[in-house]
């Protein structure tokens, strides 16, 4: 590995001359530079987006946040898109979180180390690496076509379809992060509870879960943030890119039969429409999205720092 004469030579010269290791310093600078280039790209991206989008937000303020889609640049807004994204986040929270946390609990607390358990765990890891567009196909086949045969939903896909598709996409992430949080809880805690006669579920419910809660919450928040920014799968389950209005539809109708859209889809539409003026609207939409993501991630980090325990 290290040539003998190199080391002795270096030691010798270091002791003898006290010369600075310039090549080492340069090397360190090169490495730091890569990190700073990443920072530079991040800053350039945010700067470009804010530069384009801030004037729109400054001009129109809350109106931009509540107005629906329109072909007029001065009237279009992200209102319906935000509403769609929020409702889908709720669907993801209601569906993916319980199932994901439940699956993780099973894998970490209940399952014995058999081939089946290892298969399930490997399967979850693979699902986490599947490109999001493939989940779009799953959504199309299962949550649009198949669902359409059971209940009456919009032909091309409804809010429910979108929410379910995102839930499937996010599920592996929830399982993995929850598993890690559960694994971090030391065995001694469980063993102490078993020692006083608790059943497995009681141990989990009263000791393991509360201890792992900060990690679980952080993980779920991260998963929700990921679902919030996803675009590709929604293209397959009927998210509308053009104009639509939901009229006086009841909430259930909006869920099942109305057109819907999501914030990233709205941004995509505005970015790719012929009229170049819409690009600034797209930038404004991105600013809104980044603010929400930053807030959500910030809360996750705060929660983690506040409640994290070191064992």
């Amino acid at each position, binding site marked *: 590995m290290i040539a003998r004469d190199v080391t002795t030579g270096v030691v010798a010269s270091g002791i003898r001359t006290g010369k600075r290791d310039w090549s080492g310093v340069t090397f360190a600078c090169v490495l730091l530079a890569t990190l700073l280039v990443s920072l530079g790209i991040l800053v350039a991206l945010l700067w470009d987006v804010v530069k384009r989008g801030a004037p729109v937000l400054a001009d129109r303020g809350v109106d931009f946040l509540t107005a629906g889609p329109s072909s007029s640049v001065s009237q279009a807004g992200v209102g319906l898109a935000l509403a769609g994204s929020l409702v889908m986040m709720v669907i993801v929270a209601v569906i993916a979180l319980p199932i994901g946390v439940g699956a993780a609990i099973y894998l970490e607390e209940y399952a014995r180390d058999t081939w089946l358990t290892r298969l399930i765990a490997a399967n979850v890891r693979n699902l986490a690496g599947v490109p999001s567009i493939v989940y779009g196909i799953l959504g199309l086949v299962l949550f649009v076509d198949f669902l359409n045969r059971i209940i009456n939903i919009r032909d091309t896909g409804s809010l429910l379809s979108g929410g379910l598709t995102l839930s499937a996409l996010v599920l592996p992430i929830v399982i993995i992060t929850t598993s890690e949080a559960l694994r971090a809880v030391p065995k001694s805690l469980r063993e102490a509870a078993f020692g006083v006669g608790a059943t497995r579920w009681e141990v989990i419910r009263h000791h393991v879960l509360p201890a792992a809660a900060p990690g679980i919450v952080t993980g779920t928040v991260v998963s929700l943030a990921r679902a919030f920014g996803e675009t590709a799968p929604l293209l397959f389950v009927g998210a509308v890119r053009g104009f*639509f209005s*939901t009229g006086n539809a009841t909430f259930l109708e909006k869920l099942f039969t109305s057109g819907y859209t999501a914030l990233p889809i709205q941004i995509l539409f505005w970015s790719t429409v012929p009229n170049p003026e819409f690009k600034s609207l797209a930038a404004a939409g991105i600013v809104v999205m980044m603010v929400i993501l930053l807030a959500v991630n910030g809360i996750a980090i705060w929660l983690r720092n506040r409640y994290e325990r070191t064992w």
Partner: protein
Amino acid sequence: MKMNRSIRWSVVAAALLAIVAAGCSSKSDTSTSGTAGGTGMTGSVDVSGSSTVLPISQLVAENFSNDNADAQVSVDGPGTGDGFVLFCEGKTDINDASRQIEPEEAKACKQAGVNYVAMEIGLDGITVMTNPANSQITCLNDGDLYALFGPQSEGFGSWSDANALAAKVGGKGNFPDEPLSIVAPGEESGTYDSFIDLAGIEDTAIEQGVPEDKAAALRADYQSSPNDSVIIQGIEGSNSSLGFVGFAYADQQGDQIDKVQIDGGDGCVEPSADTIRDGSYPLSRSLYIYVNTDKVASNPTLKSFVDYYMSDAGIAAVTDADYVAIPSERLDASRQTWTNAEGGGSASPSA
């Protein structure tokens, strides 16, 4: 544990808040309705089809929604051809079309039991564009268009490659030796079909000995896109680019692109609202809406929507969207078609 419970409650509270917010904000969707008129329709209307007609239908839908805040309207523009597939499966109520329905599509509609009526609603001129830096190209005739776009031009990487073919088919030729980068609609687009039709590509091809099944097509090796914005950006992005889109999109770009004059035999004509309306621009075409008449009978909102479309207030969207209005006799004819189709409507003839 206390912390556990408070987290649970905050999640539940956030969820409820989100639902309430979603429910509330969707009420004020499009915009505050100024005109308290309208018939207060509450049903739904699904419009799809041509991306060229999309801006018009979208504007009509928005104005309609202002007066009928309770109606559910959605407008999309995947392309005339794709739109007809949906329309003839009964999945949409109205199909926007930048060309007339083709025999196979009409047959599909008939087989699926979809009855429809077609109304001409506006005019468009297919605008051939190039980059402003390509100043040598100002006017092209049908022969030139064939030499640059036609089925025999596959492989022509620079403008001058097309000179020989242009000479053969009566084009002016004299193209510079610049890279020929073409961005234009593809087969799913009605604009593609209209272009082939209006520039006489098929006839010229058959004359030149191209087999019939390949004659009504453009060269296969250009960058095609159903997205007009991709086309515009492609033109702006390359110095010697070439392409075509609907007039409204081209006009909106101002000085970013150069509109090429077309010589249909009577001299070079610049595409403009006037030349399109009076027909002097050779590549003018009509825009239509196809309406599913069975659905009109069962859906009062749809009937009300088309009534609005054909009314003065509705049809104004054509010019608002930068397209060209049809002459008043043809507008009357369209209105008559509609009145006949739905047995007496409220569309008023133009004064």
